[in-house]
């Protein structure tokens, strides 16, 4: 979350709670969202349907980026071939037209696929802020299992409603385990 507003608790990243199943995590996220928290993130060792929506995430722009990449690749590839055959190196073979566009389709297609894939993947990484070797949640020992078998919810201190004591109590009321303050 790229929020510029200074946190009231700069020494704290947020409060973290652990769950055993994806269903418990989604339920907790929904409760936290309806309790008014907005700056939070959920962590899971696998994709969980509905989890991002439960913490209020709506707009996924990856597909749009990939589409732009594809359009760029197709136009770029086709223009390159047109330029080669008509401008840079026009070649008269038995009076055949230099603009023989059907023969350019395979390369145009490949360029489109290549750019869709590369732009899509790099935009996914960029929007996710990766590579990012350090993140405060890694400071919590139990978080190691977020990539193995446990599910976590973290309410971040940048949330206007965040108060270390109250938020910790709120998280405890959600039925999770091992509520911890995450140092920034």
């Amino acid at each position, binding site marked *: 979350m790229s929020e510029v507003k200074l946190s009231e608790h700069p020494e704290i990243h947020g409060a973290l709670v652990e769950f055993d199943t994806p269903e418990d995590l989604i339920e907790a996220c929904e409760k936290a969202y309806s309790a008014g928290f907005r700056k939070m993130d959920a*962590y899971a060792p*696998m*994709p969980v349907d509905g*989890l991002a929506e439960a913490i209020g995430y709506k707009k*996924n722009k990856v597909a749009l980026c990939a589409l732009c990449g594809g359009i760029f690749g197709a136009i770029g590839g086709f223009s390159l071939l047109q330029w080669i055959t008509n401008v840079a190196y026009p070649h008269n073979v038995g009076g055949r037209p230099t603009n023989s566009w059907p023969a350019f389709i395979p390369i145009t297609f490949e360029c489109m696929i290549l750019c869709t894939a590369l732009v899509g993947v790099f935009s*996914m990484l960029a929007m996710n802020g990766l590579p990012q070797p350090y993140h405060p949640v890694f400071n919590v020992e139990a978080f190691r299992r977020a990539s193995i*078998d446990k599910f976590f919810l973290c309410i971040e201190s940048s949330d206007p409603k965040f108060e270390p004591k109250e938020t910790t109590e709120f998280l405890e009321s959600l039925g999770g385990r091992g509520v911890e303050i995450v140092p920034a």
Partner: protein
Amino acid sequence: MANQLELEDKIIPDPGEKANIAPGFDYASVTEKITGVVYLPFKKSPKKWLVGIFTAFCFVNLLMFCIWTLFIRGTGIWGINIPIGWGFAIINFVWWIGIGHAGTLISAVLFLLKQDWRTAINRFSEAMTLFAVACAGMYPILHLGRPWLFYWLLPYPNSMWLWPQPRSPLEWDVFAVSTYGTVSIVFWYVGLIPDLATMRDTAPDLWMRKIYGLASLGWRGSAIHWHRYQKIYLILAGIATPLVLSVHTIVSFDFAVSVLPGWHTTIFPPYFVAGAIYSGFAMVLTLIIPLRAWYNMRDVLTLRHIDSACKLMLGTGLIVAYGYGLEAFFAWYSGDKYESFMYWNRVTGPYWWSYVLLIMCNILIPQALWSKKVRHNIIAVWFISIVVNIGMWFERFVIVVTSLHRDFVPSSWGMYTPTKWDWGTYAGTIGFFMMLIFLFVRLLPAISIFEERETLHHEAKHAAHAVQEHA
């Protein structure tokens, strides 16, 4: 929990054709099972793995030697001549690239079709794709004669202001194969990121944690990251599907766009694509059957995976058989004397034995897979998968050699005999491929861990659903 691999004498049973994964696994134990192969101390490596990688390494050296000799003495050391200018280089190029296609099919097409059994084998077959494409890509470059000038194939501004010919299928091939290689790497790596994060968090020593941590890009499993991740994974699967079809279509254009009898047919693109998938599934089976035995992985690579792969092999094999049938039909129906001579020469000419082997390996023997008994007999499946690999190699041999060696004018006829350098290079690329496979299973999780967790989650949900319905 003791590492299951250490219990070497205890064979873990296969849960049968209905199960994607043996019962009793949870998120943590499936993680441990798959990462255990990588964390196994070197001294405890299965003996067969050591023997395998050493043998493969010897063949890599053979490859180096053959390429070295080729660079010094030129393509004259190969059996190619005029009229058979393509020879082993193109036969093996098409064979390898075809093998690669099953990886993309498993990871992309089966993903779009929501085939749950793909999970256990998709990572492995994507790796197989990469390594097969690496082997394939070598051949056209070595065949150039002056391989160090391979970059002339790319459109780049040069001092001679010469540009490649974009109307040529060979130029299309450059773009198709390089795009395919790049997209395959990207697809494979994107799939690996969450598992590399798992490795970072579970690896037994510090330097492993650091290396896997760097490679995982700091992945932390955030819900929003997963959301974007799944979107791009779906898009990659969606574009890899037409890509894989286009690549082998373009490979078949190398042949079909020419005017040579035996090459100039419209059946080539679909029949090449089906053949590619056919040979790729054969290679997947050839590789996973021994590996699951050596690493005691019968509980995650189950009979269900083998059974499904066999059925797909049978299906694509029948498409290939239809292709052979149509070639014969059109040789007769076209009324073209060159076309019918080509076919007659293929069946009764000097290379008749290669056509007989082709029909036997690709059509006759694999029909045994109709029987469930055969599909469930692991040894028989392994044998058939090797037979299909050989058969598909002969298919390319038949297409390249028998079409080229006798074309329109008898004065330009010739014969082709591969030399020891041809065989050496071919055996060398097989060694290179095997060595990469051996290293891959040792260094990276060969099964997608996070997708196995998803499988477990879905199965748990289904089980809960079934209990509710009973109540």
